[in-house]
């Protein structure tokens, strides 16, 4: 007779980091961190099977506050680092966290290319439309006209649209959350982790210190869940594109788009197969292969 040992159920506290977050009281990022800890516990994913990777910025401090493997990399480079991690060990759950300046400004190039490669990871951008850690400058998502320390007469540039950008760059899962809607956000995260491919969630995560335009109240009045519209079909790319352009009195949140027919990069990569993660493969090349390599040169 065999006994089935139930895997130990994990609790949110199992994902509590070595230190508590040092974000400002009321920062939107708290909601994102707690949703992430909760979803990992709910999905019973072991902390050592997760790598949380960030760039630099307030929100990029997140890996230090969660008990998983973590990498707190360079400003804007988290997605490139994460791609390398996933290639070396595709069995790991890779979660990338960061802010709008990190991901859409300095990291914009990697953002686009990681999406078109369909790297299997969850990317959570904590979008507060401001540079916080550098004490309040205009970000790529700051609204036109917004006054900051770097643009005291008002931003003259159009903001980037992360959702539309993700859709055109080929992301296979595109969603938007709001840190004050924790259950909704958690559900998006769960779908994003389950999605085999690049899952992008742009999360409104208000900065209570430097952004007095896009406040909790401002968002609360405007956000509308796509899930509440029963006619909305997230497999329809054109419909998603149309909704992504909505901004103003009504701003959609929820899952804009998902397609599951494209292989992720690790699935497309021929080297990754039943032999398991690259990190655990034999270092040596078989002697008959070496002989062939050398004979080509003779």
């Amino acid at each position, binding site marked *: 007779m065999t006994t089935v040992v139930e895997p130990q159920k994990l609790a949110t506290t199992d994902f509590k980091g*070595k*230190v508590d977050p*040092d974000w400002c009281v009321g920062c939107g990022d708290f909601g994102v961190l707690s949703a992430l800890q909760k979803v990992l516990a709910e999905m019973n994913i*072991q*902390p*050592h*099977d997760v*790598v*949380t*990777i960030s760039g*630099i910025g307030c929100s990029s*401090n997140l*890996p*230090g506050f969660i*008990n*998983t*493997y*973590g*990498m*707190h*990399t*360079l400003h804007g*480079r988290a997605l*490139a*680092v*994460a*791609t*390398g*991690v*996933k*290639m*070396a*060990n595709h*069995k*790991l759950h890779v979660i990338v966290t960061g802010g709008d300046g990190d991901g859409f400004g300095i990291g914009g*190039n*990697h953002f*686009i*290319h990681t999406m078109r490669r369909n790297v299997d990871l969850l990317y959570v951008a904590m979008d507060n439309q401001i540079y916080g850690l550098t004490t309040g400058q205009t970000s790529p998502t700051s609204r036109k006209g917004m006054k900051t320390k770097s643009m005291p007469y008002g931003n003259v540039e159009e903001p980037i649209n992360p959702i539309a950008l993700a859709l055109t760059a080929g992301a296979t899962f595109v969603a938007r959350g709001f840190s004050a809607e924790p259950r909704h956000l958690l559900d998006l995260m769960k779908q994003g982790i389950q999605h085999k491919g690049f899952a992008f969630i742009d999360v409104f995560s208000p900065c209570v210190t430097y952004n007095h335009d896009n406040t909790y109240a401002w968002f609360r009045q405007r956000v509308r869940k796509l899930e509440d519209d029963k006619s909305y079909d997230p497999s329809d790319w054109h419909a998603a594109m149309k909704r992504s352009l909505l901004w103003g009195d009504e701003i959609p949140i929820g899952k804009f788009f998902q397609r599951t027919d494209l292989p992720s990069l690790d699935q497309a*990569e*021929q*080297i*990754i197969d039943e032999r398991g*993660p*690259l*990190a*655990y*493969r034999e*270092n*040596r*090349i078989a*002697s008959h*292969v*070496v002989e*062939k*390599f*050398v004979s080509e*040169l*003779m």
Partner: protein
Amino acid sequence: MDRTFAVAIGGAAGQGVATPGDIFAKLFARRGLHVNAYNAYQSIIRGGHTFLTIRTGIENVRCFGDHIDLLIPLNQDSIDRHLNLMKAGSAVVYNSDIIKPIGPCEGVQLCPLPVSQLSKGSRSKVEQNTFALAASLKLMGLDFEPLAEILTEQFMRKGGKVVTDNLDIARAGYEYAAENFQPFVHPLPKTDTQYAVLSGNIALAMGGAAAGVKFYCAYPMSPSTGVLHWMAGHAREAGIIVRQVEDEIGVINMAIGAAHAGVRAMCATSGGGFALMSEGIGMSAMMETPVVVIDVQRAGPSTGVPTKTEQGDLWQMLGAGFGDFPRLIAAPTDILDCFKLVPEMHNLADRFQCPGIILSDLLLSEGRSSIDPRELNFVTEIDRGEMIVAGDPNTADQIYNRYQITESGISPRAIPGVPGHMHTASTDEHDENGVLISDEFTNPLKRRAMMEKRQRKVAGIESAVQPPVLLGETGATVTLIGWGSTDGVIREAAEILNQEGISTNHLQIRWLVPLHGEAIMRVLKSSKYSIIVENNYSGQFARYLRSETSYVPNGYIRKYDGEPFMPHHIVDAVKEQLASKTHTRHSVPMHEIRV
């Protein structure tokens, strides 16, 4: 150097200089002769002037030498550029339908091939190359059979008809030469050995495969792209993931990500791409995640001269990434060393958990050399250093500190996926357990302790690397000092000087960091007249050596015209400096060949 023989092919890009070049190199290497080849080319796909020199001989041929024995110009421009440099006893084989030799060339055998008459109406554009190739072999005293073999291999894919056509053309050229031209006095010798012929870039890539590299990524950049091409072409058989990335910033970060997750990772670029990687070099040092980066130097600054060589990136490597941290920098001394250095660098980078930089240049990376295939050792030592992987004896009950303070400065590195060893690797300064001490927990004592922990690795690195050794007799009149790729040409220059009665020894530097300044000073203490030879304007190595040791040599020989040194450049400069009554002991040799 015993007698060598050099053949050069000149033509416009797109005229097919490379194929006959490859065939010559293969023929020589299969005949048991050593080969060294260098291609002077331009950043152009069609047109311009490309000049490939292949030099062969019984002993190891370490550079492309000083003169051409046989010139094959494929167009008028090529013969115009090079005929005046041909010496008595040499020969020129050319298509007399389109090329007319102009100017004096005393003692040079002109070998015109009436290509249209010989080809009997066949219209292949590159057939003049095959005629010239076959005729040249006859002049060198080679049999027809080996050429037939290579042509068959070369054209087999294109079908039997193409093979037969090419063999017919080759035979016609060979026979025409037998009837009309005078063979060289010394036919090419033959030995029983067989050599492989490879470029430095292939050697670097194969070195990576031998080192167990499992992740390679790059952005195309001349002259480093050959590494990417070999890696990509052999990735599946070798079990290596090869990725082309959006830019070099992405490249280094992706490589570090892969390395962090437990594989050996490598990337290659040239100076401009390396500039973009600088911040990543610092990340590797701070996270203590090993990564190996190859910089194939080309003439700078900025876009510079993409197809020309230089040793101009040394200070960029020394200063790459801000702040203080241990790093490894070495410059391979020849193409075989390109192969050997890569596993060595990976072992050290893994052991000391720091960035390792390999400083090649266009001369080595795009040059070709013959190598005894037994030297391509794929079972070389692989030392991954102190690494904790899943399945290791379970220490989960103990508290794991990723950046544990140790005497050696090395802290055991757990890769993601190992239970009980979760930690965050951070580019911010951090405590032993990985917690940031850059913001809330800033602490001067901890910062100092972490800085000293990392820097303690330097002592270990120094003792892990051998100091350089003097070649030749101590007490020689002249000591030539070089670094990296100039080894071959300096060795040959020293041989010539010794033969001419100027006793010369030679110190070649391979490891730049660690430098072993004290060992170098012990060697140089007994030198009488020392000259630092390098392929750059400002004497980057001379300045570095002085900054580390206060050593000032007696003279300098520098070249920064984009072309590599030829032995006579060094020999002539040494003689001038020894004869000089003035204080001007700084020679900048002129490159006589117009390429």
